[in-house]
């Protein structure tokens, strides 16, 4: 049984069908890439699966449980974490604190103890700090831990979001365009990160436009076009699928797909 699966997801915005009968599934340790032209519904699908939108029909299953319509914080507790296409960083906080917030669910919270600053809270804080430091080291941001988050360059913020999502110790990690706006060096770093995360047994779902990255790291590819599933399969199969070439690669990234 797959770790995360969506079945027959449909949603319309003001009469415009954004997604129609979309299904997919992903297993532990697997990387699934969702691709498709702009407006194909990739981010909408992400937002439904992660609980930000509610689908008009269809079901989402996480680790054998029906999680359709659960709010994001409940999904996080069940092991789903995600990043955002346009960054959602806590800009008022330091780099380290951003990741510390990601430990929210792993922290024991007792309000009275917190208000009184009891030793248990201080211990909890330093445990959280340690865990966050390790994650920053993992994504290569250890030296910048105490800088304000807003001082980081774009590529580093992308990795900061990944570290924050990992802090939840998710079973499923959803990355919305992790390499968008990154230069080739930064893209390669993110590439390595994703592979390393999947090796740890996390199911990774990503939306990405960088075809080279997609072809390189994903185990399976789901192609969306105008809200429908156009094709699904191994990267090589999808790349060879004539419908995909016609609908997407032909217009968009044929050259880069061949280059990969």
């Amino acid at each position, binding site marked *: 049984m797959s770790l995360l699966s969506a079945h027959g997801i449909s949603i319309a*915005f*003001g009469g415009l069908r954004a997604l129609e009968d979309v299904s997919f599934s992903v297993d532990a340790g697997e990387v699934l890439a969702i691709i498709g032209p702009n407006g194909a519904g990739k*981010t909408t699908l992400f*937002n439904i699966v992660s609980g*930000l*939108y509610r689908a008009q029909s269809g079901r989402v299953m996480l680790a054998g449980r029906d999680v359709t319509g659960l709010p994001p914080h409940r999904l996080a507790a069940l092991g789903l974490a995600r990043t*955002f*296409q*346009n960054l*959602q960083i806590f800009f008022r906080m330091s780099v380290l604190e951003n990741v510390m917030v990601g430990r929210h669910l792993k922290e024991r919270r007792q309000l009275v103890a917190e208000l009184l600053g009891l030793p248990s809270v201080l211990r909890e804080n330093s445990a959280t700090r340690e865990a966050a430091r390790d994650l920053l080291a993992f994504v290569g941001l250890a030296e910048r831990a105490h800088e304000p988050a807003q001082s980081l360059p774009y590529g580093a913020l992308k990795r900061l979001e990944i570290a924050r999502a990992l802090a939840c110790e998710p079973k499923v990690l959803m990355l919305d365009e992790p390499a968008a706006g990154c230069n080739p060096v930064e893209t390669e770093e993110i590439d390595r990160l994703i592979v390393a995360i999947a090796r740890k047994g996390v199911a990774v779902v990503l939306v990405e436009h960088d075809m080279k990255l997609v072809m390189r790291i994903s185990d399976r590819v789901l192609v969306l076009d105008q809200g429908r599933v156009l094709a699904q399969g191994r990267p090589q199969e999808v790349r060879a699928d004539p419908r995909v070439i016609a609908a997407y690669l032909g217009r968009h990234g044929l050259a880069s797909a061949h280059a990969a």
Partner: protein
Amino acid sequence: MAEFLQLLFAGLTIGAVYALVALGFTLIFQASEVINFAQGEFVMLGGMVTVFAYKAGVPLPLAALFAVALAVVVGVALQRLAIEPAKGASVVAIIIVTIGASILIRGIAQIVFDKQFHALPAFSGDEPIRLLGAAILPQSLWVLFGAAVIVLGLRLFMERTLFGAAVRATAANRLAAELVGIDTRRVLAFAFAVSAAIGAIGGILVTPITLTSYAVGTLLALKGFAAAMLGGIGSPVGAVLGGLLLGLLESFAAGWISSTYKDAVAFIVILLVLFVLPQGLFGRRAIERV
């Protein structure tokens, strides 16, 4: 029956004023996503400036015109001097700015005018019109008629003129509007100007009935917002219907339950709307893009 009619007319009259405040909220919210807490101050300015100009010997129509013009100047100044420079601030920060503006306007009104309640003479006398045993003030008809003219006029303007189209375009998508060459700064200033004028006219029309003072704005803003919420924020038709409905609720609550707590009705409406139908009666659910 007579009592029912009496309360009905009282409710519709005050409801028309709430509708105008709610309409002003909606106009500014549509154009800029700003909730303007100073909206009630325009109503206050309309009434107070007219009262004092009239007392100084200016003929009533001229005094009213002057009051509307002054409210428009204040509205545009609010947009240019406080809202525009705060661009990019959070929703909460902008709310605080408009609250600051509201307090500032009422503070200046308190200094320039006074702390007393004031009335204007009714436009066409105080002789009530008898209808099925109820007594209806001619001024109530002025309020209802004036509000109707404003609502229809605004609707025609938005749908029939190029500038109206520009306002609607800015409301739909500010960036896209800018890209097709619409001067959205002017549109925003215009939205504030029209909202101010609408509020001021409402204030002038209703002052002969309800009296006015420097401090009436806050409660009117709260009620106007309650009306806008009842109708669904962002919907002009909803704002008008919400206003009338709130006026009726208030009037019947005052008549049948307790006149002391009629001001609580708006607040209870806000809570009920939030509990039962957060989109209001006519609003659509907004989806936040991420």
